[in-house]
């Protein structure tokens, strides 16, 4: 910070303090100033119903939803890549090997040294997710090894995201935030990118992947 900027810092903080001269010192602290009378989640649902709601809301925002069990996952993913006609797929470093066991599409590892332009030539990407929000139809990525760098789910035009149900599914936004680490970069995705900028006509897919496929995988927890 230059000395000029340092003085701006002091100037701004000084202005703020003078502006707030009317605020009593003993005013309630944060914890008591904010009442949280709102709900932690909307409605009561069984675990299965919450997963069902996620599927509905994802589809409502035009994500393509698939469901399978753990054993069926590799063939589902292979099928999606085949249908898409993908020649290459970006792969995060920590993605479960088995998920791609059934496909021979060329794998492009997620590496720091590759350029975004190189990534622009990759057809698809497969990732896991950090958490999924049923009420809003949202999947959240947090850059964990099975999700990779943010750009790999941005530049390719086709994103396949695997959600383990029910353990990765929460009902609401408040519950999702609780599960996330703010220090990790997060990307909240609700359907493919969209714009309504031209006469309010909704057009899917401007810059992000124009096709978002979400695979809900019933894990071991479901049978418990």
């Amino acid at each position, binding site marked *: 910070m230059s000395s000029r*900027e340092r003085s*701006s*810092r002091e*100037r*701004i*903080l*000084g*202005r*703020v*303090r003078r*502006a*707030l001269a*009317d*605020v009593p010192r003993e*005013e309630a602290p*944060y914890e008591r*100033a*904010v*009442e949280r*009378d*709102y*709900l932690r989640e*909307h409605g009561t649902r069984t675990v299965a119903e919450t997963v069902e709601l996620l599927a509905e809301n994802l589809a409502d*925002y035009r994500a393509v939803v698939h469901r399978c069990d753990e054993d069926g996952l590799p063939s589902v993913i292979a099928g999606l890549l085949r249908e898409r006609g993908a020649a290459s797929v970006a792969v995060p470093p920590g993605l479960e090997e088995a998920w791609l066991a059934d496909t021979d599409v060329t794998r492009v590892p997620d590496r720091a040294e590759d350029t*975004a*332009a190189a990534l*622009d030539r990759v057809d698809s990407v497969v990732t896991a997710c950090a958490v999924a*929000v049923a*009420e*809003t139809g949202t999947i959240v990525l947090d*850059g964990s090894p099975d999700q990779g*760098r*943010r*750009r790999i789910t*941005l530049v390719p035009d086709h994103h396949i995201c695997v959600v383990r149900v029910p353990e990765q599914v929460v009902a609401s*936004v*408040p519950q999702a935030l609780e599960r996330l680490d*703010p*220090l*990790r*970069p*997060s*990307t*909240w*995705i*609700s*359907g*493919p*990118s*969209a*714009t309504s*900028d*031209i*006469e*309010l*006509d909704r*057009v899917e897919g*401007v*810059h*992000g992947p124009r096709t978002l496929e979400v695979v809900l995988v019933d894990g071991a927890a479901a049978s418990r």
Partner: protein
Amino acid sequence: MSGTFVGMPAFPEAAREAVRDTTLRGNLRHATHTIRAKRAKAVAEVEDWAELREAGKRIKDHTLRHLDRYLEQVEAAVTAAGGVVHWAADAEEANRIVTDLVKATGESEVVKVKSMATQEIGLNEALEAAGVRAYETDLAELIVQLGKDRPSHILVPAIHRNRGEIREIFTREMSEWGRPAPEGLTDTPAELAEAARLHLREKFLRAKVGVSGANFVVAETGTLVVVESEGNGRMCLTLPETLISVVGIEKIVPTWRDLEVFLQTLPRSSTAERMNPYTSTWTGTTDGDGPRVFHLVLLDNGRTDTLADEVGRQALRCIRCSACLNVCPVYERAGGHAYGSVYPGPIGAILSPQLRGTDSEIDASLPYASSLCGACYEVCPVAIDIPEVLVHLRERVVQGGPATRAGNRVVLRPAKGHAAERAAMRAAQWAFTRPGVLRAGQRMASRTRRFHPRTLPGPGRAWSAGRDLPRVPAEPFRDWWQRTRGGKDGAAE
């Protein structure tokens, strides 16, 4: 101030032109009514809307009332996470900081994601003057930039353009800026969006510097949040090596948890969605993922002056959802450009005169750009009592009185001969060429009262607060209307 559109006529004159522009009015009417209906549905889906709204209001109020502490916390947290924090007292300083940072990278172009703060300070023009080209990457902003135009709505800035015009702008201008529009481009929205995708992708892939604003900054962690739809935000936030975010000091919330309120209320109020397609959060820099260098520029530019006004400071709670624009009968008829600022509609009418002062004719007339119907207050997700602030600012314009300008206490002189008020009356003459509009407004106001019997929006509330208000506000406007309605029917049309 650079945020004022130079040569901008005062609200009444600007609005008169807009009211005559039938394309603009048709588009705006369609837009505001469509979004309004969708929003009502999205809000009705959550039964705890009133509680979320109240919590949002309280979080913002608390933060503003202890803003010095939270600013220091933001600075410490962002620095600890690998970011560099800068402080800009005004537009000029912010522009200089950003220009210097860009120059230091050796680059001569930047990609930008829509940010009202950078529009407010006129950053693109400042960069241009320094030989740096700033590419707007929101579809609407691209349309506005290529059309050498000004935005007219917070959420859908190009709503005054229809598809035929957009096709023409793309065909004519894209080649000037980079990849030309595809041969034989038609005017279907999907094709136009595809043209924008191709045109901008070239820029995203080679961009070394990104410039953004932020919807929220979390003090405890130093996390920034950008809420968007198209993915251009993600491009700007993750592909460049250097990211510069210019953020108004009022964007702070204390904790990560506070986002649980705003990530519910903002999308529903704004685009009427349960959730917008993309939200990005980042804290400083992350090894091997995204920009290696991150600068946060904290912008004052009139915000501390606004904070000094005990009635007016609530305007700083605004989360820029644009819900108040879509319900405003004056906005619907006058259009965004008439407000002479990047902040149009009801929020602009209370924010611009506070950020910039009321020296110019346009800013002095803005507090009159309203019928005080209260619909804006009713939809506001942080419960800003816009009518109350309008009445307060009218008093300020007409009577003069104490105010803070660039950090100094000043005493404003009354506007000569109530010039502003007269101007406003003229404004009303054609902004309300149909009495039904005003009646609808009044009906909305009475609905609000039924829901909130103790918090009358607008004048009633201000008076009940026991402050010494002149008899200027609200009433004369309607009195005037009734009087002139009888006299000269449909004066302007």
